[in-house]
């Protein structure tokens, strides 16, 4: 899953692959904007078939948060 997220970030949001770590802050360090965040969420929903709740989404800052927020398969 981490690899998939990384791929999306690099391919679609022009994030530098080298900067991506589990704990890098998506918004500050990786410089994706809030709408990209929503986009990312939509794509994860399509991939996993599960939706992250808006409340959980609000708390997400890093990829680790994101993985934690994804409902268990």
């Amino acid at each position: 899953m981490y690899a998939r997220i990384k791929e999306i970030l690099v391919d679609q949001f022009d994030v530098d692959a080298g900067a991506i770590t589990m704990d890098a802050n998506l918004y500050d360090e990786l410089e994706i904007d809030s709408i990209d965040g929503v986009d990312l969420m939509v794509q994860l929903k399509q991939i996993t078939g599960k939706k992250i709740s808006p409340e959980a989404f609000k708390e997400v800052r890093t990829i680790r948060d994101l993985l934690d927020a994804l409902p268990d398969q």
Partner: protein
Amino acid sequence: MKLLNYLWRCVGSTLFYPLFGVIGLVNCFLVIPLLSVLIRDRQRLQVITRALIHRQFQLFVLLSDGPRIISVEFRGLEWRNPAGGQLVLASHPTLIDVVLLLSVLPQVDCVVKEGVMRNPVLGAVARAANYISNRDPEQMLDECAARLRAGSSLILFPEGTRSIAGEPPKLKLGAAEIAVRADAEILPVVIRCEPQILGKHQPWYYVPRKRAEFLLRFLEPIQVADILAAWDSERQPRYAVNDYLYKLYTGNSR
């Protein structure tokens, strides 16, 4: 005379705002639930609720501008399209901006905070008016764009919350993204209040030495496509819209 004027505004605003609150409560507690029961047709309920809100806010302007507690001036109202289909993007200096806007825009969509939606009183009104909740950002973006495309007008404050006086406006990306997705016509509104009242971190009962003057300037509408045509950056188109609005709100170039 100056003192008398000040005292009048003190009395006016400390009596008037609570009075208005009471009217609002009566409306919410009695009229809207009654309407919601009586009118089964959601579409009709929406139209009537919005008309009621519009009338009530007109009354607010009349009762505060008439007795000169505050002064309210609208300019460029002719840019409004009564047929709808406009994305109204306003700056947001004070608590009552939406009240003033709705007093001149009868049937428009608004986005309402989830907290308000869940409020038993205000939520009933917002639901009857079929306003859009901001709970889920993805749904909100889709819903706003869909309604614009379907031909209704929508009010948004791109700053998302009241601006901090004296600081440059911080435009969030949601409104700009909606504009781009709906390929909308934007009706920009620049709101000023001088001296500042009802601002962020200001108590509602503060009465300035001089009467507060509200000026709402409706500017010539612009198509998103025209903004994007003049945009030569690599960045996402939503930044073009915000860049355009920023200049309007700060008065840097027109």
